[in-house]
């Protein structure tokens, strides 16, 4: 242990002067670090999105809702497509009937 008394330590501490020297590239390095942190934060958006989904979709009600929603959308699309197909079929049947009684259309 140090044998010098507390007075001597106080004197030394009082006499001690710190003169920090700022390196020339200090400003540049600081801005570089800030830019790097911001980049990391932007990159972290995707994990946050997946985290949001994973926390929401593990709930049974939300998962069931998503399934029902996609089912409704697909049935709606099928309804529209089927209506169009039925109209086409109906027209084709009309043509088929006309061709069955019109000899001029039979050979076509």
């Amino acid at each position: 242990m140090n044998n010098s008394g507390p007075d001597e330590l106080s004197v030394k501490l009082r006499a001690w002067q710190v003169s920090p020297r700022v390196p020339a590239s200090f400003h540049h390095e600081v801005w570089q670090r800030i830019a790097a942190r911001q980049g990391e934060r932007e990159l972290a958006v995707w994990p946050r999105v997946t985290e949001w989904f994973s926390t929401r979709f593990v709930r049974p009600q939300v998962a069931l809702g998503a399934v029902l929603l996609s089912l409704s959308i697909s049935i709606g699309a099928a309804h529209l497509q089927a209506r169009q197909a039925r109209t086409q079929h109906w027209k084709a049947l009309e043509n088929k009937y006309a061709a069955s009684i019109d000899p001029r259309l039979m050979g076509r």
Partner: protein
Amino acid sequence: MIKVLLTAIAAVVFALAGYWTYYRCATMPTRSMLSRSGGEMEWLRHEYHLGDAQFIRIQKLHREYAPACDRMCARIGEANEKLNRLIKANRSFTPEIEAAVDECVEVQAECRRALLRHVYAVGAEMAPEDGTRYVQMMTARIVEPRLTYETVISEPAK
């Protein structure tokens, strides 16, 4: 994350299955009418709201008309073939070609007359409104809709 993936897969599978099932069921009647023979008569029955008795009478008319229709179809084919043969064989408009053209026109006219008679007979078996609609639909085809006065005659000539 696995749960999210499973939910997404379930949503897609249910959506595809729902689409396929609904589409198949909704288009089944018309698809089956189109694919089976005599589907056009079923179409006529639905389109013109025919009752059983009406449908039976119209089917009878159709059966009676069918052989005459087939004969006319064959005659039209023969007349057209004869005209084509003569056109290929001659380098100028000959009396034979003229006769063949007349024959084609005569066969076509005869065919139209028979068809119109049949159409009016079928229309008469239907309810008045449906009968009128049926005759209009068929005559629009018989008169060749693309060759009406409006489309053929130029504006200055009208």
